[in-house]
């Protein structure tokens, strides 16, 4: 019994426990409100249902948040990702719309390569501003956040570019093994980032730079280069997310593509347990955070919460999630319950786990 109790406490102490619990509670609440919420059926040879919508729509946010996790881990922040989404989407759609055959795979691949190339340049710009020139990240990326929207509009000449391209549409709406292709792209990106950061020393280096940039440099890490790199990765993730967003509606809207996605991404990272002060980062937590945010949006529509109260509803849920996530808040709550003193052998263990969070 004490073994089971101990295991339960270990589970409670896991940093993914509370975000996942919140996600489950939200899905359960939706199912109570509408029993068919979690129903998935086969429609036109692929899975169709609200859970699939949530997965598909959260894919771009997962991508953006992955890059954001690395940036935040170095103690920085990237506000320009939304604009990067808009720019990359606009470039890709513009190139495809001008092509003689929009369904040509080569055309679409060229468009993607071009847009990705520009995004990498934008990421490098952020990286240089932050790591070489030494501007505060929030200011450095704010430049591109504001200017980038204008750039996206300039590319699209203030119009919404509508395209009719099968291969491009597939990025947002295609299916693989009955599931949306977008999910696989996001998953592949997550695995790639995880492999590079967790199977090599790169992740530790990023965290050490976030912990103390100067100390890391003195320890022999080229801190500047690491900081530069995370902004480039963040821009690349944002570019792919931009492809998904524009492919989802087969059109590029310079004003609205990826609008405020940077804030959602930062929120996803924070819900996932990564500290805004930098240091340790949690990719799996970020993914759960992104799923929570998309589920929250879908909940508003599924429960038909009036648009006037929707923002308040979201804010209350987000505050609740953040409080539940905070170890200090939970500890206070726990101390008020009398009669359940934690066993002495597990208490130092938990403390040790709380330090990085």
């Amino acid at each position, binding site marked *: 019994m004490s073994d089971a109790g101990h295991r339960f406490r270990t589970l409670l102490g896991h940093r993914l426990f509370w975000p996942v619990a919140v996600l489950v509670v939200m899905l359960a609440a939706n199912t109570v409100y509408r029993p068919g919420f979690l129903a998935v059926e086969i429609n036109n040879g692929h899975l169709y249902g609200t859970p699939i*919508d949530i997965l598909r729509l959260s894919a771009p946010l997962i991508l953006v948040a992955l890059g954001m996790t690395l940036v935040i881990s170095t103690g920085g922040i990237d506000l320009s990702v939304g604009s990067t989404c808009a720019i990359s989407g606009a470039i890709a759609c513009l190139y495809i719309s001008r092509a003689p055959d929009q369904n040509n795979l080569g055309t679409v691949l060229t468009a993607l390569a071009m847009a990705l190339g520009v995004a990498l340049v934008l990421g490098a710009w952020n990286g240089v501003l932050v790591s070489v020139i030494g501007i505060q990240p929030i200011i450095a990326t704010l430049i591109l956040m504001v200017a980038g929207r204008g750039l996206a509009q300039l590319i699209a000449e*203030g*119009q919404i570019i509508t395209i009719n391209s099968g291969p491009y549409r597939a990025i947002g*709406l295609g299916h693989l093994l009955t599931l949306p292709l977008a999910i696989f792209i996001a998953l592949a990106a997550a695995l790639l980032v995880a492999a590079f950061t967790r199977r090599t020393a790169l992740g530790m280096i990023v965290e050490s730079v976030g912990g103390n940039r100067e100390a890391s440099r003195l320890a022999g890490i080229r801190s500047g280069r690491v900081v530069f790199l995370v902004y480039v990765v963040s821009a690349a993730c944002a570019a792919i997310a931009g492809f998904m967003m524009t492919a*989802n509606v087969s059109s590029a*809207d310079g004003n609205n593509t990826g609008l405020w996605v940077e804030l959602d991404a930062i929120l996803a990272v924070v819900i996932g347990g990564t500290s805004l002060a930098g240091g340790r980062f949690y990719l799996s937590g970020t993914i759960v955070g992104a799923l929570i945010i998309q589920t929250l949006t879908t909940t508003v*529509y599924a429960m038909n919460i009036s*648009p006037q109260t929707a923002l308040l509803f979201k804010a209350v849920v987000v505050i609740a999630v953040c409080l539940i996530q905070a170890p200090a808040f939970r500890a206070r709550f726990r101390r008020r319950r009398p009669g359940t003193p934690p066993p002495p052998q597990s208490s130092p263990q938990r403390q040790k786990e709380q330090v990085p969070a």
Partner: protein
Amino acid sequence: MRNMRMPMARRRAMAVVAAVLLAGGVAACGNSDTGSGNDGGGDDKLVLGFSQVGAESGWRTANTNSIKEAAAEAGIELKFDDAQQKQENQIKAIRNYIQQKVDVIAFSPVVESGWDTVLKEAKDAGIPVILTDRAVDSADKSLYKTFLGSDFVKEGRLSGEWLVENKKDATGDVNIVELQGTTGSAPANDRKKGFAEAIAADPKLKVIASQSGDFTRAGGKQVMEQFLKAHPKIDVLFAHNDDMGLGALEAITAAGKEPGKDITIITIDAVKDGMQALADGKFNFIAECSPLLGPQLMDLAKKVKAGEEVPPRIETEETTFTQEQAKEALPNRKY
């Protein structure tokens, strides 16, 4: 002290100059009346300062182009400024126009409030102001000459009236879902209101769900996906603009339904992509919200400069489209 006195003195000087200019302007108008052929030349050209909201949509771009083209056609010198969605830019632009002593100032306000001071400066300088497309909430109506723009309530009402007529033979409840514009914006509030008023005429027309799609395609699509899952029987979709309707099309097709047949779709705006969908039979009805108010604006500018009385509220010339009308109108569509 010096800093405080400077603007006062400058303003007074400006008022004098403006008054002289105004008198000159009236005379110039008299001249051009006698010989309307030489509208294009000389220094007596009417100067119009226009501050645009921004370039946030195809609609806005068409609006800008219409104003630029109409000004060139009417022989009016246009000073154009793009405020990029910021009120402070717009106030700065209007102050610039006052300093440049333009004849008439026109602008589409980014937001409704906070205009009294700058409008008063224009009034003191004797420069008449025309509002286009969007209104301001100033209590003092003498601060501007007229407001030229669409009647959003009417657009909603026309949509609703068409639906009442279209569904008059339907038996049983007609379930309507509504995609609202940006929460709290004037077009969203007014279109919702007009539509609700019109469909109240027939008790079997029921709005079963209404959500904001933020006037975007992605928003419209995401909301419609959930509507379709939550409500098995949807007969009508009313979208506050074409873009949300276009986004919803994909969601409807993915749900295995045929837009325009299984679900009747009504939208507002009539931009080119929307008109194309209407001509293709995917939409059923569009109430136009025309951005082409350039010619009307130039007429008004000439009238207010000549000191003629103009009505305080002027509606943009607009119409509605059915599928057949869309097929006819589409080749000549400018936006």
